[in-house]
């Protein structure tokens, strides 16, 4: 790409002065940041600091109080359902809880997001097998989600997020509850997806190893505000109590 292109042309996700509260409780105050195409942004923050709420606001699952959210130049907080769906087609969302469909088998869970696309059954199954293998799950296609372990559920949720080959991926704690080996594999997988498909991602995590592997840029949320923003190395040098606490191992 031409160097002279202004950086704002590369901005694919733009959050401006986002405020969100539940009742009297202010969760997010005046959050602003941008993500450029092909970037992995890692969000750190204490439990309850509003990270999950933030990405749900971005994708339009939660209404916001004020501010503006743009994905690919669509104003998410003013979009109608068909515009939202148009954007969501390009988005993969890994819920913190996995949000697996209990009443559907593993295979049905995986191909569910493909239903809206005109894809042959055979190709759906191939795609499902491929993502299952990439997250290290085999021979579970016929099981029900309730028969899986916590880590397996997490990985299945990840597989379901990846199956549509989305342009944007929002990961809510992708490696929580996984052993360090699997955790590393998942981080590597996230990186290779970014490189292969030029995806843009927001990654929420407490896992500093995962952050180290995946982050192009990091952002620390504290008490509903953006505390600092910078690369992994920059943040690790910072002299701030909260930030230090994350980097202390």
């Amino acid at each position: 790409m031409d160097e002279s292109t202004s950086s704002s042309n590369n901005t694919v996700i733009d959050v401006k002065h986002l405020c969100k509260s539940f009742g009297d409780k202010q969760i997010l105050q005046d959050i602003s940041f941008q993500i450029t195409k092909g970037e992995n942004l890692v969000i750190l923050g204490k439990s309850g600091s509003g990270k999950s709420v933030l990405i749900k606001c971005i994708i339009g699952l939660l209404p916001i109080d004020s501010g503006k959210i743009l994905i690919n130049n669509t104003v998410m907080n003013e979009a109608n359902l068909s515009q939202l769906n148009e954007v969501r087609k390009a988005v993969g969302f890994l819920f913190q809880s996995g949000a697996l469909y209990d009443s559907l088998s593993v295979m049905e869970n995986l191909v569910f997001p493909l239903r809206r696309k005109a894809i042959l059954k055979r190709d759906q199954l191939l795609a499902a097998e491929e993502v299952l293998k990439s997250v290290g799950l085999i021979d579970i296609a016929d099981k029900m989600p309730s028969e899986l372990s916590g880590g397996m559920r997490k990985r299945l949720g990840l597989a379901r997020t990846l199956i549509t080959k989305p342009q944007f991926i929002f990961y809510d704690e992708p490696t929580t509850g996984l052993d360090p080996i699997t955790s590393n594999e998942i981080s590597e997988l996230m990186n290779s997806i970014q490189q292969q498909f030029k995806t843009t991602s927001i990654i929420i995590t407490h896992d500093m190893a995962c952050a180290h592997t995946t982050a192009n840029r990091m952002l620390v949320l504290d008490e509903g505000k953006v505390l600092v923003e910078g690369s992994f190395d920059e943040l690790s040098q910072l002299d701030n109590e909260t930030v230090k606490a994350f980097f202390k191992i």
Partner: protein
Amino acid sequence: MIYTNWVRQCYFIGYNSLPLVGITGFIMGLVLTIQSRPTLASFGAESWLPAMVSVSIVREIGPVITGIICAGKVGSSIGAELASMRVTEQIDAMEVSGINPFNYLVVTRVLAATVMLPLLTIYSDCISLLGSFFGVNISGDVSFQLYLSQAMAELQFSDIVPSLTKTVFFGLAIGLISCYQGYTAAKGTVGVGKSANSSVVIASLLIFIIDMLAVQVTSLFI
């Protein structure tokens, strides 16, 4: 996709309710017959027994009992299922994958309940009549053919159509109420319990109210 899910819901709501609806229907028919016999006998009108029982079953008892049973069985399961899907973010997940959860979850269930309730009622009516046949035969000896002709003698088209029409509304009420309660459930497992509970309570109450209105409306025309 919506169609296959509708068929699946019809199976859950309709087919899975058959045993319960059948057993209660049979018992209602049997009990009603046994209890009505002495009264009719004291008027010397025992031969009216099948006709009286069949009219009360088809007009009132069949539809209302089926409605109440389904409000309990179907209403609670829809309410709890949708509520737990809401609470565990499964509905949100559908939304972000671009599938309209309202069409996929709510429309299919409401339509399935609306279609299945009349069918279940017909089934329940038939089993009740069978129960009544047994009741008649406890202290009598009536062939099935004779019983049927006696039971059908007083039944008219104007008994059957309004009573089945109101079951369509019973189904609609059960579907709408339980889907609404589930879909808008509050967070947490407490929300699931509450949704299931209020689905049953409100749907059962509505069934009696619809039944009362139906009687009023029917009496205008007949």
